[in-house]
């Protein structure tokens, strides 16, 4: 029996063994990937609102053979039948003219028939008059304009009612006092008049009731300067909220339009309301105020519940966002919104701006019963800036319409704070503000990517260098290894690799180098050796170095341009002769200067030889330089040991997150950006694109344009008249193409290595240390850095010469 008694005493080490076993189990269990940071798959829900769109394009009737001096487009309004747009302005004066011809076109778009009629009322305005505002409702167009008496120069405001069918003036009414702005809310038209002394104005609001009685209220503050009334927001049918800007805050007043009563409101009741960024607004038939403040969509002010709601998300419209986000809201009626405006993104230097300015788009978006993309997997796209916004949006729409499995929507989560940038007083502060802005966005992006919440596709993030890492971005090499060099500038793609991997695919590029006449180039014809450059600067340019930087910055820029000679296969070789040659060249030939000062303005040397540091981002800048150099212009590389060519930089880039739900789908989108159609659109916007055909075709058109009417765009400060302007030919496009082909390296910098060089090299330049001891220390430190990064993290400026890192085909 006793043998059956259980021994209640445990062996001494049992507890420890149990604990060790438990811990091992925990470690083993936790080593499994039960915590998954991968991005969660989001699908387009069935109940996601979708808006069908209808786009009507109207020609505003501009003379395309002439340039515009000034123009203004006013969306006057609409009713059930018509939408009326008023275009006013001036053409650029022709030769011998003092002023250009006036423009006043009224464009009437029949909403039902989809026809467009134009009334040319240009003869009704003279150069001393301008249209302030235009209103249309129920068949009547009213133009409010400033008229100036040519004899007395007195200005007065008048209103003219115009019959939109005949173009005849029905009635003209003088306006007693100048009106600053007009708001039409329901049956009331509220005029805002600014009165009082210049330094202490006050505002008077006037309106007529339905029975014609005139009413007014005065907004005046004793010790506060009023800066304007940006908008008036309806509260009820006869009550409005009037925000008034001051220097420190926004004041609010409630105005009873029937009772003619002004009641100051507590600003704290409206601190949820932000009206400073309203780009366009419209009052709906439900008395709510709808507005657009950014590219994300239309929002609605709900005064009752004291909140701002999202009304339309532009991700679900199927219309190019750059069109509708910059349009005016013409009307809102239930689930239907009418927007009118022009496409943005046509740079001043684009080939033919007038054509784009002559196009007006009416976009009607109506809520659909169901979302045609329901069930698709959502991919999120982030654009770091608005360059090439229109083309990227076109690509997004094409992708969404053609891809059965995925849908791209844009995110505006990462907002840059430009306050510091706007307040910068000097170049140093400007550079620091840009750096801080980029750091903030980079921090947000990296954290979100790590946590699986980041965007799938990133556009124009090549400046955010820390992202170039397999932790954040996917290697796109497998998708673009078969790019045909006869169709694309593949040398630019190769130059864009970081450590052998293609994280940021260049969509367009800019060229960085030194501009000079052809004959001054070195033996290589594409760049300078140090000796050649020394002779060029000291001899030809009389000592005025185009690079014009302080010693350290100069040295670092040249080092980065030749970095593949110094860092290879994860090994630093600063003891090579090229490094010594570079260091000695800078020490002997470059004066130290304060980099915080602006670069010196170019003054022609006595021999009239021109040379400057060049950042060529488009055909217009190339043509402009060609003109400056009297038709003989080449972009050479920075001085180097081997006389290499200029560098390239991705001007527009596309990257894919390493955390995306599907790299293949995202890569398909990137391929779309390289398609003929998109590249052609970019080329027309003055980008140097990767697609050779698009580049050449647009280049030849641009050569013709800038040889003729476009010459006006390249005139600066009246250097010469278009008559004497250089004529550009296809040969110039060939030359630029040669320059592109001579680019062999991406203009990039490894900040960690630059910091080490900035710390070590000054001692040599100042003569405190000899070069060998500086090289010994610099090499030691740089090698430690490279060793630390290991095989994964080669220097971010190392060229793809490593056979281990060759791209996967």
């Amino acid at each position, binding site marked *: 029996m006793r043998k059956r008694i259980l021994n209640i005493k445990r062996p001494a080490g049992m507890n420890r063994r149990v604990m060790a076993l438990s811990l091992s189990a925990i470690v083993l269990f936790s080593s499994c990937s039960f915590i998954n940071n991968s991005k969660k798959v989001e699908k387009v829900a069935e109940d996601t609102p979708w808006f069908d769109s209808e786009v009507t394009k109207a020609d505003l009737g501009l003379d395309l053979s002439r340039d515009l001096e000034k123009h203004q487009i006013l969306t006057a309004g609409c009713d059930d039948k018509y939408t009326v747009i008023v275009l006013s302005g001036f053409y650029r004066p022709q030769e011998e003219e003092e002023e250009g011809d006036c423009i006043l076109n009224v464009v009437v778009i029949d909403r039902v028939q989809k026809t467009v009629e134009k009334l040319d009322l240009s003869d009704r305005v003279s150069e001393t008059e301008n249209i302030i505002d235009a209103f249309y409702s129920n068949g009547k167009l009213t133009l409010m304009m400033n008229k100036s008496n040519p004899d007395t120069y007195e200005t007065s405001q008048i209103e003219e009612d115009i019959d939109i069918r005949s173009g005849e003036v029905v009635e003209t009414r003088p306006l007693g006092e100048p009106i600053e702005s007009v708001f039409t809310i329901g049956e009331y038209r509220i005029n805002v008049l600014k009165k009082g002394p210049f330094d202490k104005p006050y505002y008077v609001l006037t309106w007529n009731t339905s029975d014609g009685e005139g009413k007014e209220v005065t907004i005046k503050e004793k010790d506060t300067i009023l800066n304007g009334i940006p908008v008036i927001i309806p509260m009820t049918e006869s009550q409005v909220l009037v925000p008034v800007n001051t220097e420190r805050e926004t004041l609010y007043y409630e105005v009873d339009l029937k009772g003619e009563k002004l009641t100051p409101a507590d600003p704290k009741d409206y601190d949820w309301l932000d009206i400073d960024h309203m780009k366009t607004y419209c009052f709906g038939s439900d008395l709510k105020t709808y507005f657009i403040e950014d590219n994300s969509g239309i929002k609605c002010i709900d005064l009752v519940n004291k909140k701002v709601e999202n009304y339309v998300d532009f991700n679900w419209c199927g219309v190019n966002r750059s069109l509708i986000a910059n349009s005016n809201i013409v009307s809102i009626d239930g689930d239907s919104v009418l927007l009118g405006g022009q496409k943005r993104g046509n740079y001043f230097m684009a080939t033919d701006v007038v054509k784009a300015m002559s196009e007006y788009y009416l976009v009607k978006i109506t809520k659909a019963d169901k979302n045609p993309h329901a069930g698709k997997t959502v991919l999120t796209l982030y654009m770091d800036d608005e360059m090439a916004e229109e083309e990227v949006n076109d690509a997004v729409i094409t992708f969404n319409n053609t891809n059965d499995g995925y849908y791209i929507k844009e995110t505006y989560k990462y907002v840059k704070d430009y306050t510091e940038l706007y307040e910068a007083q000097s170049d140093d502060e400007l550079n620091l503000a840009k750096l801080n802005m980029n750091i903030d966005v980079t921090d947000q992006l990296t954290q979100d990517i*790590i946590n699986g919440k980041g965007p799938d596709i990133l556009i124009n993030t090549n400046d955010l260098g820390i992202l170039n890492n397999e*932790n954040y971005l996917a290697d796109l090499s497998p998708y673009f290894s078969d790019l045909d060099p006869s169709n694309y500038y593949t040398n630019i793609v190769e130059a864009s690799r970081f450590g052998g991997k293609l994280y940021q695919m260049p969509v367009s590029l800019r060229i960085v180098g030194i501009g000079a006449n052809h004959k001054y180039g070195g033996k290589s014809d594409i760049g300078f050796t140090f000796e050649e450059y020394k002779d060029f600067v000291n001899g030809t340019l009389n000592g005025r170095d185009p690079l014009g930087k302080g010693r350290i910055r100069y040295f670092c820029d040249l080092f980065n341009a030749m970095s593949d000679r110094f860092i290879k296969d994860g090994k630093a070789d600063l003891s090579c002769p090229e490094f010594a040659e570079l260091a000695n060249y800078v020490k002997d030939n470059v004066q130290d200067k304060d980099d915080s000062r602006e670069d010196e303005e170019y003054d022609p040397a006595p021999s009239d030889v021109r040379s400057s540091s060049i950042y060529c981002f488009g055909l217009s800048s190339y043509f402009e330089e060609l003109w400056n150099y009297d038709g003989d212009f080449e972009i050479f590389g920075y001085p180097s040991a081997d006389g290499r060519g200029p560098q390239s930089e991705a001007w527009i880039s596309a990257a894919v997150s390493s955390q995306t739900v599907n790299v293949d789908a995202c890569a398909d989108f990137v391929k779309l950006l390289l398609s003929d159609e998109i590249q052609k659109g970019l080329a027309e916007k003055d980008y140097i694109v990767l697609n050779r055909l698009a580049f050449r075709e647009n280049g030849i058109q641009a050569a013709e344009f800038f040889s003729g009417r476009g010459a006006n765009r390249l005139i600066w400060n009246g250097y010469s008249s278009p008559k004497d302007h250089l004529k550009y030919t296809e040969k110039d496009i060939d030359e630029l193409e040669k320059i592109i082909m001579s680019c062999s390296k991406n203009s990039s910098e490894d900040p960690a290595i630059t910091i080490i060089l900035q710390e070590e090299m000054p001692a040599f330049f100042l003569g*405190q240390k000899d070069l060998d001891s500086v090289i010994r220390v610099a090499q030691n430190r740089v090698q430690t850095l490279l060793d630390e990064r290991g095989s994964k993290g080669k220097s971010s400026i190392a060229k793809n010469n490593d056979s281990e890192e060759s791209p996967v085909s």
Partner: protein
Amino acid sequence: MSCVKKAMINKIKHILYKLKEWGAGTGFLLPSVAGVMLFFIVPFIMLIQMSFQKSATNSDFVGFENYKTVLTNEAFRSACANTALFTAVTVPCAIVISLLLALVLNTQLPGKSTFRSFLLTPMMVPVASIVLIWQVFFSYNGVLNGWTYQLFGLDRIDWMKDDNGQVLIMLLFLWKNLGLNIILFLSALNNIPQEVIESSQMDGCGALRRFFSIRLHYLGPTIFFVGIMSLINSFKIFREVYLLTGNYPYDKLYTLQHFMNNKFTHLDYTQLSVAAVILSIAMMVIVGVLFLIESRIDSGVEE
């Protein structure tokens, strides 16, 4: 049968009694244990988990791949060697020098309170100030180079970018940390029972014999503690080195903490985790050895 039943009942009663005892103790310990678990144990487990992941953004299990990567990394090896050398030299020096100074201060030396204040002052000086002083003295254009050049015509030496830089950092460490160790030793010396010393004197023991046979045994736990503290502080020297030389110093000054700090900065959490785990294992081994030595020394000491 009844005997078996009785035995079972007794066993249950015993277990219940043990549980009651255990429960009370556990209840009091729970808040501290929870804190330690939350801020040390659980993060450590997560650290180990991270070291077996593919990357910070991809939690796939990769076995010992990361360990292989880190252990074959030249910079990591160099950092380990530098850290090991630094620790192997400074910790014994810190113990020996501070013990010697404590013995001196424990005598009736005139002006010992002034001397003691002088030795304790570096503990109170902020790190940034210490770094500034070191820079003023030892930079390329610093005071020391100026003196040697002007007085002896010797060439300047860039101390922090030279193989001798490690010596300077060791001196910096010793200067900063001796004060605390001296205080601990002084306190321990005062706690040695005087009757044992007196009886040994009466038995004819010399000073050296008294020190090695009696004092050292009583100082055993304190030496162990000072050793642990010095070991920990030897890793904290990264602060001063970082402020003096930046992220990527001359290779002789590049320590394990530089490696880990740079990996943290570049968000390479997997390699950082591996380095931290390896460091933890090394620390456990070192502390374990120290425990072993201490227990042997301490076994003969009477309370």
